[in-house]
């Protein structure tokens, strides 16, 4: 009798979960079916979004939402390749100095007005206007007439020309392989006429573009509500009715809400919660690592002793065991020993990279004039070296590991933990910081962004230097110039390989790791994969309404009380994505 009752309860539970009843397809296994229209995606940011004016908001959080609100001339496809967006195609002149963008017909803004070439020109000029607090106008300095316009000496940007209502041409002063990448940034995306010709701060809270979603509610620190733009040019898209993007939500709250089914997608789990999900059988295989476009490590100021000595720098780069750095935060941190992330340039065998070689590190210390005897602990660099790390970040953890590893070659670090603004102030001033955390996130997905701003001679300044290592190498400068001007991809790859080799030989940075986020989404959310370039790119996501109802029913019937982590799992037999591989 007892066993019959147990079986009945079990069957009832299975029926409630829709596992084998045919009520709904197994959750997580319907990815090849036709997308369903409808539903509201709910997700959250740990931070607030300061504003949504395309011309001024450039942080990660704002960019994720801007990519849904604004369509640009060009964007990235699912493989991370540049493709036209509101442009129909991209025509490039043979000398690489002239780009023409014929526009799609019938593209409408959220206010219903048609997008024309004049809107594109107005939007670019608005972003680069002298009064606009755009954080990165200098990206566009190679557009003809930029300086005069940006300095307020000209009324229009002469390099941006209208060819009728539906074509725009942009002329450059010199070929620039990164030009299409910077045109893919939301900064220059077309904005509605209500944005005006000149920037005004009020537009940031009522943004209007030509993207698939429009903003209906925006409250700082609370929520951004997006609804589908019914006049979107890509007919039938987007699939979602809307997106509720909660702001300033703590990591643990995100986890609680995700468990309760109140969030459909999360990315900012704490280390502990991330580990919990990865080790819980019900969630194994669900979610993915966001591709990392970041390089982390330590800079060494080449103008200050002892790092004005090339051998000491090389000793540091050889002394760092990168696998050990990764082992303290498995998954999130991966060993990385070159400037450009592997997502952009995957290293083939023999590719120049820094390596861990303790014997070689000791030898470099000897060559540098600071021999160290590990048996007696005698020798090495006689003074303590201050190392700047950032408070409450992995950089602080990494600093402690560097401290232990470098002590083994006679370099003694004294860690100074500071806030981010202080860190920026100190590292950007000449002859101020000897050594410290070095990290760079791709401004846009091109190898150039990992060299020019941070290691080129032209980025050195007495104050506000982005080149924290104050590294100046004519050979590297020449290689980077040639790579930027070249439009031949193979040639550019070869040149960046050369640049990597220079960094290995000169070691202004000891590159060490990349950092990645774990992304999780509910099994009823489909059409989402981490994009190789665009963060949290939920533009093509869709919700399986039937599966969502089943999931909600399962949760409400107390399964969560037995094991809250099995709740989203019911019915799913196979993994959808492997977590074991770690970030790319």
């Amino acid at each position, binding site marked *: 009798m007892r066993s019959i009752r147990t079986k009945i309860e079990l069957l009832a539970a299975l029926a409630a979960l829709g596992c084998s009843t045919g009520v709904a397809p197994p959750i997580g296994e319907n990815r090849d079916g036709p997308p369903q229209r409808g539903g509201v995606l709910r997700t959250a940011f740990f931070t607030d979004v300061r504003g949504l004016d395309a011309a001024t908001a450039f942080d990660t959080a704002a960019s994720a939402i801007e990519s849904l609100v604004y369509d640009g001339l060009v964007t990235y496809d699912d493989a991370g390749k540049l493709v036209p967006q509101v442009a129909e195609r991209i025509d490039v002149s043979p000398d690489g100095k002239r780009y023409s963008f014929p526009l799609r017909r019938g593209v409408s803004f959220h206010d219903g007005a048609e997008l024309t070439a004049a809107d594109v020109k107005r939007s670019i000029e608005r972003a680069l206007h002298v009064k606009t*607090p755009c954080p990165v106008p200098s990206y566009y300095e190679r557009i003809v007439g930029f300086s005069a316009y940006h300095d307020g000496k000209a009324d229009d940007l002469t390099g941006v020309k209208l060819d009728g209502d539906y074509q725009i041409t942009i002329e450059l002063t010199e070929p620039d392989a990164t030009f299409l990448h910077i045109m893919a940034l939301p900064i220059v995306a077309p904005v509605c006429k209500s944005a005006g010709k000149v920037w005004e*701060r009020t537009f940031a809270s009522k943004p209007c573009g030509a993207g698939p979603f429009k903003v209906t509610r925006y409250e700082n620190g609370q929520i951004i509500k997006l609804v589908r733009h019914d006049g979107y040019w890509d007919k039938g898209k987007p699939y979602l009715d809307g997106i509720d993007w909660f702001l300033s939500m*703590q990591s643990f709250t995100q986890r*609680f809400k995700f468990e309760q089914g109140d969030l459909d997608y999360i990315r900012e789990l704490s280390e502990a919660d991330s580990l919990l999900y990865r080790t819980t059988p019900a969630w194994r295989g669900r979610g993915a690592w966001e591709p990392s476009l970041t390089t982390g490590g330590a800079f060494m100021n080449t103008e200050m002793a002892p790092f004005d000595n090339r051998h000491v720098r090389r000793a540091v780069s050889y002394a760092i065991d990168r696998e050990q750095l990764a082992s303290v935060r498995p998954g999130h941190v991966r060993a990385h020993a070159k400037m450009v992330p592997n997502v952009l340039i995957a290293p083939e065998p023999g590719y120049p990279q820094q390596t861990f070689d303790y014997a070689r590190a000791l030898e470099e210390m000897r060559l540098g004039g600071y021999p160290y005897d590990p048996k007696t602990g005698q020798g090495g660099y006689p003074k303590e070296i201050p190392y700047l790390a950032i408070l409450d970040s992995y950089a602080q953890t990494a600093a402690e590991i560097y401290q232990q590893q470098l002590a083994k070659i006679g370099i003694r670090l004294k860690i100074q933990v500071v*806030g*981010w603004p202080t860190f920026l*102030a100190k590292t950007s001033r000449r002859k101020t910081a000897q050594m410290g955390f070095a990290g760079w996130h791709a401004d846009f997905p091109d190898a150039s962004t990992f060299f020019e701003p941070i290691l080129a001679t032209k980025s050195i300044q007495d104050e506000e230097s982005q080149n924290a290592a104050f590294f100046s190498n004519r050979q590297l400068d020449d290689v980077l110039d040639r790579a930027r001007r070249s439009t031949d991809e193979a040639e550019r790859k070869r040149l960046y390989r050369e640049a990597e080799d220079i960094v290995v030989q000169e070691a202004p940075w000891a590159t060490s790791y990349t950092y990645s986020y774990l992304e999780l989404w509910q099994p009823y959310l489909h059409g989402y994969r981490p994009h190789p370039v665009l963060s949290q790119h939920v533009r093509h996501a869709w919700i399986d309404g039937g599966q969502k109802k089943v999931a909600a029913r399962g949760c409400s019937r107390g399964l969560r009380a037995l094991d809250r982590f099995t709740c989203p799992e019911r019915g799913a037999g196979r993994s959808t994505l492997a977590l074991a591989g770690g970030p790319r």
Partner: protein
Amino acid sequence: MLAYLGRRLLWSLFTVWAVVTLTFFIYNVLPEDPARVIAGPQARPADVARIRTQLGLDQPVHVRYGRYMSNLVRPPPETKDDAVWKLGPVRIDLGVSYLKRKPVTQLLAKALPPTLLVGFLALVIEVAIGAAAGVLAAMKRHGVLDYGTVGLTLVGISAPTFLTGLLLQHFFARELKLFPLDGYGQTSAEQLHSAFLPALTLGLYGAAYYTRLVRDEMITLLKEDYIRTARAKGQREWLVIVRHALRNALMPLVTVVGLSMGGLVGGAIVTEKIFRWPGIGSLSVDAIVERDGPVIMGVVILFSTVVVAANFLVDLSYAVLDPRIRKR
């Protein structure tokens, strides 16, 4: 009397000015660059320099100070600038947030009601719990209830608000689902519902403190002759407690409650972040982390004015109550 009031008023104005000036110079002499924070860590130097110019941060500190103070309070003419807050004939301009690019007066006006709501609820909770628990503990002195209450108050006083907040969130919102995990809500009912957990977080700390205060006060009062007399007259015990002892025990509580308003605001800074409560606390934390100078200054001005005004009113009441002060 008028001379006394005049002196106090001048002293209050001087105090606000001193706080504002001190904050301005501390913020501006730090070796940190708001333009760099605004532009982002990866911004090119030329772009940072332009932002610095746009914000006037390239000017010497004393010039910026002069400009800030001259804008802060200005007389008419009428202006359409939405950054300006009109207070009778005076225009108050706290500037525009560097990062949110909204007028600071608007940000403060929006953040103040949620903070007041949570603060008021917290006050009610801490006084209600504190008075009730204090009386019960005093009545059952040396009993299990007394020791238990005293033990709990020790925990309450020792536990930081971020811990209390997380625990309350876990049990009441996540497990029992009685309250929202976080957020503010749109309707008044939703807002009141959402305010309970942050208010309880803040209130529990105060409640623990007030319990001890009331308990000690009650123990002393219950030994007084007039209590013995009341009991000898055959009054019921609860009447003796409520009418004779508690009324007197609440006097020091009222004094301390007034003084603890600043503490409530301090606690709100952490609590509001945990519960994603859009009040002054959250605004302050964001502004400090992001070095948003105008917002930091706005919050300092707001609170220094409130504290100084409260002190002024207290001084005023002293003068009303104490004739010796009036004659000074």
